[in-house]
């Protein structure tokens, strides 16, 4: 009896505790996954960067229209070809209470260069140099045009907090992929939210940091409760039933439902993840023929795919980088023309077609399986018989790397928010030593493209650089180096009292620190 009484009291306490916090403004957030670690450098992924923007703050960040906005760096200037000087904000406090200074930036850059996931991105940097407490120089080995792009990934960590050893004798700044580490369960950043509770995969509570430097931020959520809800239908139901306030991502089949429902809103935006298929020239000699490749591009109605399969929630593409990117050329549009495709096949001498194999994931990109099926039927019209195999992403990437099929699907998002990145990974000549063309399973190799991309890497004049990258996109377009399909839309949904539109962006890092709850 006593036990039951104690339990009842406990239950009452919990109910009361929940009642009390209801006064403060709480945002109940549901995503498909929660951060894998509290250590921002342990993995480079969308989820970890979303987390970083809540708990840490970058030196600079992207605005919605792809401009660079000052955050912990108030201003910056280029001293010479190799050096960019950042002037840091004064009076910024870490969650531990320590003052933010240049030494924390130096510490963070050093740590990034050690991280398995980030070290390649920070390869061009020799390191950071603290000139004074609030001035820091970022130095590169050669002229590098993307210093500011990379500065959006520099989320300064509290050097004092992460220095020393933990109770197990492990250094506190160790980046550990598997197993316990200090940074896995502890954080001290300068961001708008502190992590106050975390049970991985179940619930994460972020509480507004009282000493947050950005007093001008309109954000007014005192607490964010993040619950991962993996199942799409359940996530949408949780929003519609009012159990959560904000969900991301929103499955496309539910867009209409959410639009119709009163009290909730849907926000979508064209993203920068390009979905493509690659035609393997090594496995299939036919694909080495430019005309065959062109015929395939002409035969695939990617606008139709967007309209019918994606229900209009994507943008059909003719090139890799979307509008706003340095290499974007408005002239490179989708080109569906079945007659032309047939003519090209005839010219190439493959009027009677051939058969080939194709693989695609079935849980990685939006509607990936259906898109692959559509491609199969479209190619049948030019007598190319495709044997399609789809599989979950857990198995897909090994097959992809092994180049197990003649046609392979891949989507790519540029980590640098820059055009060159797509080509470096997808279309440059595969080279194990340099790492270029790592995901080029088409084995397309054009020395001219390689040369141009390498040039763009050290061209610091934006106008000239844009010209080079446009030329790259044009070459790939004319060569039909790959088949561009579309850019997936990003989507968010929430209750009507949330001001969602201003905080979302094409990187899919909603700036929750600035979220206004009316």
């Amino acid at each position, binding site marked *: 009896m006593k036990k039951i009484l104690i339990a009842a009291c406990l239950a009452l306490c919990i109910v009361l505790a929940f009642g009390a916090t209801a006064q403060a403004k709480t945002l109940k957030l549901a995503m498909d996954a929660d951060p894998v670690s509290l250590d921002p450098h342990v993995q480079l992924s969308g989820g970890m960067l979303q987390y970083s923007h809540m708990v840490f703050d970058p030196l600079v960040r992207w605005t919605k229209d792809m401009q660079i906005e000052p955050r912990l760096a108030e201003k910056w200037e280029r001293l010479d070809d190799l050096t960019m000087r950042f002037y840091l904000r004064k009076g910024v406090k870490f969650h531990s209470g320590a003052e933010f200074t240049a030494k924390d930036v130096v510490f963070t850059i050093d740590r990034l260069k050690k991280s*398995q996931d980030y070290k390649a991105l920070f390869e061009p940097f020799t390191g950071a140099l603290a000139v004074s407490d609030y001035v820091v120089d970022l130095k590169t080995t050669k002229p590098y045009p993307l210093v500011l792009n990379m500065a959006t990934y520099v989320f300064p960590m509290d050097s004092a907090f992460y220095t020393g050893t933990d109770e197990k004798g492990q250094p506190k700044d160790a980046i550990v992929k*598997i197993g316990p580490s200090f940074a896995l369960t502890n954080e001290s950043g300068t961001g708008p939210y502190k992590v106050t509770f975390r049970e991985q995969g179940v619930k994460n509570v972020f509480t507004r940091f009282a000493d947050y430097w950005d007093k001008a931020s309109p954000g007014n959520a005192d607490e964010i409760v993040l619950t991962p809800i993996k199942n799409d239908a359940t996530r949408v*139901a949780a929003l519609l039933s009012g159990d959560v306030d904000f969900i991301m991502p929103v499955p496309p089949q539910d867009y209409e439902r959410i639009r119709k429902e009163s009290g909730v809103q849907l926000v979508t935006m064209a993203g920068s993840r390009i979905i493509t298929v690659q035609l393997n020239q090594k496995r299939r000699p036919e694909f080495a023929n430019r005309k065959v490749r062109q015929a395939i591009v002409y035969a695939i109605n990617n606008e139709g795919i967007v309209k019918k399969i994606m229900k209009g929630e994507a943008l059909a593409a003719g090139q890799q980088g979307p509008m706003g990117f340095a290499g974007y050329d408005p002239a490179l549009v989708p080109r569906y023309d079945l007659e032309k495709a047939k003519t090209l096949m005839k010219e190439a001498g493959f009027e009677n077609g051939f058969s080939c194999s194709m693989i695609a994931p079935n849980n990685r990109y939006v509607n990936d399986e259906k898109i692959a099926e559509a491609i199969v039927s479209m190619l049948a019209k030019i007598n190319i018989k495709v044997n399609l195999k789809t599989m979950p992403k857990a198995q897909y990437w090994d097959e992809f790397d092994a180049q197990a099929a003649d046609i392979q699907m891949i989507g790519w998002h540029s980590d640098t928010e820059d055009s060159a990145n797509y080509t470096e990974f997808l279309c440059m000549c595969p080279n194990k030593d340099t790492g270029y063309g790592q995901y080029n399973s088409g084995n397309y190799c054009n020395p001219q493209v390689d040369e141009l991309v390498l040039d763009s890497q050290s061209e610091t004049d934006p106008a000239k650089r844009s010209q080079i990258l446009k030329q790259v996109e044009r070459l790939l377009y004319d060569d039909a180096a790959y088949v561009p399909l579309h850019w997936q839309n990003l989507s968010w949904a929430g209750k009507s009292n949330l001001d969602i539109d201003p905080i979302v962006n094409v990187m899919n890092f909603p700036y929750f620190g600035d979220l206004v709850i009316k």
Partner: protein
Amino acid sequence: MFAFVIRRIIQSLFVILVIGFIGFAIKHQIGDPVRDLVGISVSKAERDALREELGLNDPFMSQYVRFMKNAVRGDLGMSFFYKKPTLKVIVKKAPATLELVFVSSLIIIFLSIPAGVYAAIRPRSWLTRFIMGASIVGVSIPVFLTAILLIYVFSVELGWLPSYGRGATVSLWGWETGLLTIDGWKHLILPSIALSSIMLPLFIRLIRSEMMEVLQSEYVKYAWAKGLAPRRVYFVHAFKNTLLPVITVGGVQLGILIAYTILTETVFQWQGMGFMFLEAVERSDTTLLVAYMMVVGVVFVAVNTMVDIIYGLVNPTVRIAGRK
């Protein structure tokens, strides 16, 4: 008797070894855990270095021997995703699943018995026809569809019940329970109904047919002839004998019920072992997968061994049959 018990235990140890081996063999087919640990742009050389560090490049047998050596000491490895010992992760998730199965079993027991008995006693009444018809529908609808329908009707349209999760839980000596809060019970209703929807029709039909068979037997006829009250005939003489096969089937079905939690838990974001298992498959968290299979395997083997031993005590023919 002693020899029988020893033989049984040795057999079950062998079964566990085989489970471990099969689990370990298929884990290499599930996918590459390293992929899920790094971003997509990380180079192959970096991935290979990480794989080497984790010992994933060692020959299969040496990995298996290392795994078994550690397993004997109770160490089933470190989960790639949770970055914690796998046993800890599983133990933490177990209460959620057990509570769900427990409440579902209660629903099944308290609904199937009256419904089944009624249907057997009054085979021609309209209520019986309704129960039997509904049970056909219940059996044919897959559990995830039932779950989504329930969410749609009771959470989205009516707004009576929460749509996902366990709600508020209370820690009782390390056991996170949702059975002691009103919120926890509210969260339990839909998932447990969804889960019981598979077994409930099956048990109604089983009890009905068993009961009808018993009602035809000689001793029931004799009971009627003796002029006993109907209640006594139905519930003392007939029902008791109906229950024996039902309990036997129930024991087997309990395992299947646990298997179905994988679907129910996924739809309701119920943080139990089934949900954890499915996520581990998606993330190629292979150590957690193998550990889960080992734990579930050990539980099943232990329960079955115990049942066998009890059977041996009750029914000597089982023991004798085992002797050469």
